[in-house]
């Protein structure tokens, strides 16, 4: 760890100004990711701007019938928030599939969105990694890549985004509210995370000094037909090898709306609108689910260690869609996969 200075921001404007003033500044919220990275000398901010005293807490109903989740809302508070749990069970389930109870208590909504990859080389400063040290090379491409991306990767970086929560947010088409030196703006979550391309050091599209203030959910539609299915190397407390957020609206025996997002397979939650469209209008069936899975996985390539993710993802998509269609979502505490 390198010494740093610390500022406890008193207002949002304070924080934004502080971030803009000093290039080496970083926001700290729950600290469950950033502090680890600092201890590993992966991140060495010159200044930490603590935003935890800012009024960005709380889960509030919106006029549009949705929910506005303050960026500082702890992951567990959100998962157990009565209205969130009732109207957005897919989101609650995804959150509870992640990390451990202790981590979820400390982790915040904003921090979860911006947590960094779990690629092992990113964490080890003795190795080459374009995301950590641009231009140094990508060790994962030919090294340990069991958890690497099968979709949307680039020559420069094959890392995955590790969040569970974000996969559900992608399926639910959440809106991310940010505020920065140039004022406030809102962007669909699909536009928040980026693909690595030739600039893998940039995980997201935010500009310097921008702070996430809230995440907004549109009015609920998937209270009944949904499932978050996470597959990992042990039954709890491990990042996803593959995860699926599936949400359906079914009427008259036909799928009216479908939302499908994958975690653990790409640099961002992976969603393809056409794959969803293939389901819409059809009766839920294994064949339809398989077709959607194939479309969503189109272009998937393995690097050796992660080849298994391609068939695994296909099966997981079919299973999660089956669970969703049956109204039998995967439980995160009972470990049997139904």
């Amino acid at each position, binding site marked *: *760890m*390198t*010494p740093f200075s610390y500022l406890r921001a008193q207002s949002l404007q304070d924080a934004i100004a502080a971030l803009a003033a000093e290039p080496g500044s970083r926001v700290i919220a729950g600290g469950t990711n950033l502090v680890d990275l600092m201890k590993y*000398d992966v991140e060495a901010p010159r200044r930490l701007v603590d935003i935890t005293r800012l009024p960005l807490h709380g889960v509030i109903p919106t006029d549009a019938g949705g929910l506005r989740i303050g960026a500082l809302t702890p992951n567990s508070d959100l998962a157990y928030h009565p209205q969130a749990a009732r109207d957005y069970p897919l989101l609650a389930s995804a959150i509870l599939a992640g990390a451990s109870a202790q981590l979820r208590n400390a982790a915040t909504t904003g921090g979860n969105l911006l947590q960094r990859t*779990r690629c*092992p*080389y990113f*964490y*080890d400063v*003795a*190795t080459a990694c374009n995301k950590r040290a641009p231009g140094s090379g990508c*060790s994962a491409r*030919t*090294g*340990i890549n*069991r958890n690497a991306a099968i979709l949307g990767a680039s020559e420069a970086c094959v890392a995955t985004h590790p969040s569970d929560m974000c996969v559900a947010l992608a399926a639910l088409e959440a809106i991310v509210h940010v505020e920065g030196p140039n004022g406030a703006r809102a962007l669909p979550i699909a536009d928040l995370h980026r693909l690595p391309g030739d600039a893998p050091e940039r995980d997201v599209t935010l500009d310097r000094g921008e702070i996430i203030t809230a995440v907004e959910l549109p009015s609920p539609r998937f209270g009944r037909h949904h499932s978050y299915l996470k*597959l990992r*190397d*042990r*039954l*709890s*407390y*491990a990042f996803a*090898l593959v995860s699926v957020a599936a949400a359906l609206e079914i009427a008259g025996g036909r799928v009216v709306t479908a939302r499908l997002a994958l975690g653990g397979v790409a640099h961002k939650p992976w969603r393809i609108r056409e794959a969803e469209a293939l389901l819409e209008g059809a009766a839920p069936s294994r064949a339809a689910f398989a077709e959607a899975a194939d479309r969503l996985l189109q272009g998937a390539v393995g690097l050796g260690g992660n080849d*298994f993710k391609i*068939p*695994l993802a296909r*099966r*997981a998509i079919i*299973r999660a869609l089956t669970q969703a269609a049956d109204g039998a979502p995967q439980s995160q505490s009972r*470990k*049997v*996969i*139904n």
Partner: protein
Amino acid sequence: MNDVLAYVGRPQPRVDGPLKVTGRARYAAEVAVEGMAYGAVASSAIARGRIRSLHLAAAKAAPGVIAVLSHERDPGLPDEDDPYLKDMGAVPGSPFRPFCDDRIHFSGQPIALVIADSHEHARDAAALITADYDAETPQVDLMAAKAAAYVPPEPRSGIPPPPPPRGDAQAAFAAAPVRLQEDYRVAAEHHNPMETMATTVVWEGDGRLAIHTKTQGVNNPKTYVCAVFGLDPDAVRVISPFVGGAFGMALRPHYDLLLATLAALTLKRSVRLTLTRQQMYTMGWRPDTLHTVALSASEDGRLTSIRHAAVQATSRYEDYQEPTVNWSGLLYACPNVTLSYELAKLDTSTPSDMRAPGAALGLYALEAAMDELASRLKIDPLELRLRNYAERDFNEDKPFSSKELKACYRQGAERFGWDRRRPEPRSMRDGSELVGLGMATGCWEAMMQPHAARATLDAEGRLEVACGTADIGTGAYTILSQIAAEALGLPIERVTAKLGDTTLPKAPVEGGSWGAASAGSAVQAACAALKEKLLAQARGMNGAFANAAIAHARFTADGVALASDPAATVAYADLVRAAGGDGIAAETEFEPDEEFTKKYASYTHSAVFAEVRVDEELGVIRVARLVSAVAAGRILNPATARSQILGGAVMGLGMALHEETVWDATLGRIMNANLGEYHIPSHADAPDIEVIFVDEDDRANPLGVKGLGEIGIVGVAAAIANAVFHATGRRVRHLPITLDKLL
């Protein structure tokens, strides 16, 4: 004998529990003294080569830094092997000597030590240290290295090489109607105890050192530092009363001890050095091992040959060895057996003993092969084992001191419901899950070592028993207190056990599951000697005792009484006062009975049964139930004994499904050196585990105890892997069985 207070054999809560849960138990990294300095180690980025230059200037200039030590300015450590070989756990070869030269032997090797005025300053400065290397291509792939495998020229002390072949296994195999030959492999593992390695060296002036270090036996680090630094043994005390788990990794001294002592001697002040979690992966590991097992049998399931060949990883600089294949000559009655054991060198640190070293790996391979044989023969796996039951140790051609393995099989099978098992794989299911039932046998040697112990009674009738052994979390404090309390007829609250200090009566390292049998026998003997002393004292004080022999005396909470006349009692207070001192003490040495061990082979056994559930489509495996039936002689404390078996079972489950140290083959570097990515079973993975202790009467030591630290893990991985086969019809012969291997 007294029958008033019986402690031995009853569940007794841990006597050290309250200290541990309230944080009052002080571990090596928690000892703080005035003026102490703090160390942090900078580690090598490469796995093999030489350091061309070290860049230390930034670290030296960093705030709070007192000194930076490295090989560059010779810190004065001896550069010949001899002193380092005084490590009681040394293996053949040339022990790792930090800071001796510019050579890099393994990734993460210490290249510099920063000493600063605070832990944070030391750590921050260590992060500023970089080096230029002349890197060479490392070899960390056992499959590739095995081409150069060799029979270790010098066996490791205390580890028997494979027994010579018996019969003609090759001919018997060729002639047999049923044959099987398969390769098995278990991934490399690390111990991952909760407590990281740490040493606090307290500089007491006049060259006197009090060294608090994490160790499984205080006498080893003491001998080691005295040899390496040329210190007077009378000036060095090593203290380690509490150990936060070790599983074998703290049998040998590690570089935290060496470097902290070096710093204290160089700076003439107290120094604390704690290693990081990542650095815990730069020392001692369960070696990656390749097994080939060939079995043959008659149609009715009698084994006609067993061959087991293992190639095991070791470091470039030492020949670590464990008895990996020997078990395959021991477990079953078979006339034709050939066992072989070879090593292959990797550019890693030296492996080390890890819970049931050798047996955990070797018996996985044998018991997985036995399951394959059973399925080929269409004989129930348990029945196959019974048909080949060994009533004798055929490796050494000796009878067993006791062997209740049949009772383990029977009681385990009954509790588990083995008779529910349908013989065909993939024949049992429950919803979307395939159900599999598997079993395996476990075995571990019941060893003993010489131990000394002292028992001291004070005027308040409080008893202290002392022994230089370690309690690494197994419950040694508790069982020794139970033995002592029962011997003297005292309530256990009046007994204190003292362990982990070189000023106490001598004991070797705590390993091999010999602690309970050896330290227990020593404490029992010390208490017996103390009773003789107390009685002798009573004889001089009360005429009624004049002719009393020990059999006539009763020891109670109040004092020594006559069995025939309880009214005749001499109070402990009076005895101690009359003896003229603070207390009456007796010290004895326990020596294992050589005659007995020459005549008999002594082993613990277990039968492990596992039920797994496998999602057919996704390959997700859940272990639903484990039953472990153990024969380990007399059980001193069913509560702590059960915990040992539970812990072993969970560790075995980790071996079967989760644990794997992952190296980058090009960099020779461990890429999952943290508890987030090195997966040990989580609570969700740990199933219902039932532990059965079967009655077993053993005479190898006066207590009838065999030891329990390791047997709990042996056989578990095989039972689970066999259950996965039964569920899915898929044989995965390379542990851990992660879901991708079932897709």
